[in-house]
């Protein structure tokens, strides 16, 4: 059984704002399936005493003190912006009213 369906690839493409053609969906579904199956092989060697890992270094609590550090000037900050107006980043209008919080 395939590790990822064609529909799932289409859904991911939509979430990622990628325009994928019908043919590409077939191609990517196949390719992603190979990748997922390969990665899944790791599962064969896991044992109950090995916790799932998300970070490659065994560190916790890397924190910094609450001290202000100089940042960029507005000119520097905006220097790489595709477009600028009123000292702000100018972007195409946003259709979705929802904002993350």
């Amino acid at each position, binding site marked *: 059984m395939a590790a990822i369906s064609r529909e799932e690839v289409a*859904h991911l493409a939509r*979430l990622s*704002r990628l325009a994928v053609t019908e043919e590409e969906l077939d191609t990517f579904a196949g390719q992603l399936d190979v990748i997922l199956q390969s990665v899944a092989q790791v599962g064969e060697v896991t044992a109950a005493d090995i916790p799932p890992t*998300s*970070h490659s*270094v065994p*560190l*916790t*609590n*890397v*924190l*910094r*003190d*609450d*001290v*202000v*550090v*100089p*940042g*960029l*000037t*507005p000119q520097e*900050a*905006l220097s*790489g912006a595709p477009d600028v*107006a*009123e*000292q*702000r*980043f*100018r*972007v*195409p*209008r*946003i259709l*979705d*009213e*929802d*904002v*993350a*919080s």
Partner: protein
Amino acid sequence: MTTTLPAYDEVVARYEPVIGLETHVELGTNTKMFCGCPTDFGGEPNTRVCPVCLGLPGSLPVANKAAIEATIRIGLALNCSIAQWCRFARKNYFYPDMPKDFQISQYDEPLCSDGYLDVEVDGELVRIGIERVHLEEDTGKTLHVGGATGRIHGATESLVDYNRAGIPLVEIVTKPVPGTGALAPEVAKAYVTELRDVLRSLGVSDVRMEEGSLRCDVNTSLNLPGEEWGTRTETKNVNSLRSVERAVRSEILRQASVLDAGGRITQETRHFHEDTGDTTPGRSKETATDYRYFPEPDLVPLAPDTAWVAELKAALPELPRLHRRRLQEQWGLSDLDMQSVLNAGAVELIEATVAAGTTPAAARKWWLGELSRRANETGTELADIGATPAQVAELQGLVDAGKLNDKLARTVLEGVVAGEGSPTEIMTNRGLEVVSDTGALTAAVDEAIAANPGIADKIRSGKVAAAGALVGAVMKATRGQADAKTVRDLVLERLGVQG
């Protein structure tokens, strides 16, 4: 909307509301959550930014220790369990308010979980369950320009300022709160008020709703008694304590009218409008965004050790409810009297006035009397009335020293509220001081006696009660600027009668 809404009392007699609240609090740290940029409110656009909060390639976030501590302290104050190990997560979405195209948040491993906050409503204690308290970063501010309305609809482009992007933001989510019946709107307001007071007592945020450092989303659903909970809506943009109450109430009425008409509630986000008190639909939750959360690879896990948490717990301040309980005892107030102090928003004001040297009774008299009356008349919060606890204490000091009588003090207080200066200044400038010059008073008394020989004779013959008429005459002659008791004593003395 032209549909007529049913009466509130009638609706809550038939339906049971369930509410839930999601509150966002900007922490008052010096710097942002993952970089050293300053966090102060205001400032020219894009002046508090750096490669980290702009999401520039190669930059790496490092968590702010003060923000972690503040979040743990909030969790402890809300009786939560503190995670022994947890991670940040990326919340992916396409919206330019975050330059990285994701927001660093927490997903299934919040720093604090499973607590509660007790709030008082109508003298009853209601326990609000806390689902989770987690830490994330605030977003930038977008300005929608072009088009006629200035609103997002019709705008042709958006301008983004990232000064706010990356400011530590704590999200506090309640468990669903059933069983509050008709009181649901008041419970919601009482919870946010109490939460605000807790956060303020912890000193973790300036908790100003109007500046957006405290923001609230309100979930509401209705069900028939004995049936499962209904579909809930989430009302956003609720930016004052009063609005919290209004939003719940208006959503209860709206949902009831939909259900009564045989319709069903759509799970959706609704927007609250401060001017009308109504909500209008936003995005439908049925097409809820898939944020593809995954553990943030650029930040190592957090593992607050027990000793650290215990140390933070030991240093927690007295929490507002206990603090109020203690004040009530110190001030010698009944539950009812304390409730009216609370309702007037006068606890801190009276406390500060007492700290400035006034007796609790006198402090309460001014804040709940004259000043509350003015606040109600002008529709202002008592704290914004224009008189400070120090000024009220000074005023009472003048009364205690016999320089002002009650009537004059009220006139002086009017001047204070009008911004004319300190009580002493106003008293001096307006010549409102009690006439304490005995010579002048004696002259006024003698005049009154001479003008009213009949009354004077009555008093001489032992009808001491008649002295009131002469006191009145003297008060009138001194334009109320004499102490009535002093005048009375003087009248009797001049007539050779024992008081």
